């Protein structure tokens, strides 16, 4: 087939290029710009090369924040994915109750992050919060502002409350797309409930679950507002996740260079993990095919 060559067609790509340039490339480049320079004020910059990157890689503070961040993302994935699937499996498949469930479950997803944070901040307070007060009254020594474990539990429960619905809704969509004939055939084949899940439901959900895990990983890895509102990173640095630490460094200490280097590495970690996960999942599919 002969292709028509028309260089003017490049103009059609221009709007997208402009949009992407302003929304992503240029802001990112300013960060790159900061990460390789140093400044002593008055808008005077000096070339620093990779010094900030080296400093950050050697910084115990960053590794600790990264470690806490991975713990956080790992824990919420381990809880939210199975819980979401479990909820989806037990939701009514059709009828008015199904709609009611869907609406109720979507509610947490509609609440802005800082509102979620505020809700839990108050909810967990020992003096006036329903949760904190009740736990305290029951004789459990609960105080998320002073106890590391309590702070972590509060953050994790909050995130599970906020985001499990997303996994459940995606899993539910996956389940709904399974034709009845599969369940009927499984009955004829005398498959147990577990086998129906293992060989029909789970494989049919694998696509949406991949998306769910990716979304939840990326989102939880970037989490800032809610823990900032609830614990502010404390007690001490116990819940100082990557974003919180980054903001402290960039805006609290005004260490723009290290913070910029930190940001770029942060971005690359998310990109890398997502890419590896996605590639592994799609390759598994191919191998089986």
């Amino acid at each position, binding site marked *: 087939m002969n292709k028509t060559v028309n260089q003017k067609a490049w103009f059609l790509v221009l709007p997208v290029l402009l949009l992407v340039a302003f929304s992503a490339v240029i802001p990112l480049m300013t960060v790159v710009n900061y990460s390789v320079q140093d400044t002593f004020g008055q808008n005077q910059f000096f070339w620093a090369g990779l010094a900030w990157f080296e400093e950050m890689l050697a910084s115990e503070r960053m590794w600790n924040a990264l470690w806490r961040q991975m713990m956080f993302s790992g824990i919420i994935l381990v809880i939210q994915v199975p819980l979401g699937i479990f909820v989806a499996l037990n939701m009514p498949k059709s009828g008015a109750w199904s709609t009611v469930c869907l609406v109720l479950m979507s509610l947490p997803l509609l609440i802005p992050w800082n509102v979620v944070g505020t809700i839990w901040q108050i909810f967990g307070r020992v003096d006036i919060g329903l949760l904190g007060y009740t736990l305290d009254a029951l004789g459990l020594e609960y105080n998320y502002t002073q106890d590391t474990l309590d702070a972590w539990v509060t953050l994790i429960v909050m995130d599970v409350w906020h985001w499990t619905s997303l996994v459940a809704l995606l899993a539910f969509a996956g389940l709904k797309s399974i*034709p009845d*004939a*599969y369940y*009927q*055939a499984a*009955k*004829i*084949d*005398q*498959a*147990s409930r577990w*086998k129906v899940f293992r*060989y*029909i439901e789970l*494989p*049919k959900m694998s696509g949406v679950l991949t998306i769910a895990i990716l979304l939840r990983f990326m989102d939880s890895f970037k989490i800032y507002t809610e823990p900032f509102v609830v614990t502010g990173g404390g007690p001490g640095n116990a819940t100082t996740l990557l974003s919180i630490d980054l903001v402290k460094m960039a805006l609290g200490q005004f260490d723009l260079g290290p913070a910029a280097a930190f940001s770029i590495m942060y971005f690359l970690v998310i990109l890398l993990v997502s890419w590896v996960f996605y590639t592994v999942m799609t390759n598994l*599919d191919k191998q*089986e*095919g």
Partner: protein
Amino acid sequence: MAKITLDNLAHSYLPNPASEEDYALKELNHDWQDGAAYALLGASGCGKSTLLNIISGLLQPSQGRILFDGHDVTHAPTTERNIAQVFQFPVVYDTMTVRDNLAFPLRNRGRDEAYVAERVQEIARMIGMEDMLRRKARGLTADAKQKISLGRGMVRQDVNALLFDEPLTVIDPHMKWELRTQLKSLHRDFGHTMIYVTHDQTEALTFADKVVVMHDGRVVQIGTPEELFEQPEHTFVGYFIGSPGMNVIPARIEGDKAIVNGTEIELGHAYRPQEGKLEIGVRPEYARLSQAEGLPVKVRRVEDVGRHKVVRADFFGHDINIIAGEDDHVGADMNRVTFDADHVNVYADDWRVAPSERTTPAGEAA
């Protein structure tokens, strides 16, 4: 293996069916003989699949009972009925290999591995997939997947019945023929009761000993292919079976004559006076075009379909079809039609009326 009895069976998908219209399956009494091969034939949406799902226990009937060899299994779950069923669209377990797919129904029933391996090998040979046993089922063609579904249906030897719900819809024509032959030979060898749902008359007539024709939630006729052809009990059977279908012409019946537009047509038998909408039905095979004798027709078009010619004609304002032999001459001057009197059937309100000199009372089928 078992005789399956349907006793006053009916089903409606509505919780409180009011009129007969609400029933997807209207009241039905029937014995499926042990070891026979049945075809369940009917247009889409006539209740075929509903009936099949009731027999296999996937659906609970709104009324009536199902008996297997005299045991009431109406409320027994599918697993207790020991039935194999193959669906219209392929169902395979994607993450399993072809071998594990075929072995699945046996393993779920706790059969030992030696037996499973032997059966799987045998079935794989039957469906022509011996060299694919190690492959994952995901990514196979629809054809291959449906063959696996069929294989899973056939792998158990001790089933009470094998139900097929339009299993060859997605299979390509060449393979269709081969698989149907395999199913027939399976039936010959093991004598399972088989019920084969289809809307394809060729498939039904070649597969089955007995064909059950359904229309609008009702079984309208059960018979051998020959009976369906010669004496359709309902005008639907006449239309649906045969290519082209039976000619149905409104008429008045007077004794052994039918009167169409004031013209008399000989009937092979005498009939009692009938009520309702009266029609006569003649298969195109029993109509003959001629020059001199019979009633006037206007030939519109002649289609040569190979082994014979189909003449489309106008008969007192009704379309009729006439079949002429391959070598018969159809001339421009041939504008009369005769009917073979012995093969003209009479219908009152769509149901066949038995002639009065027979012992069976008129209108029995209704």
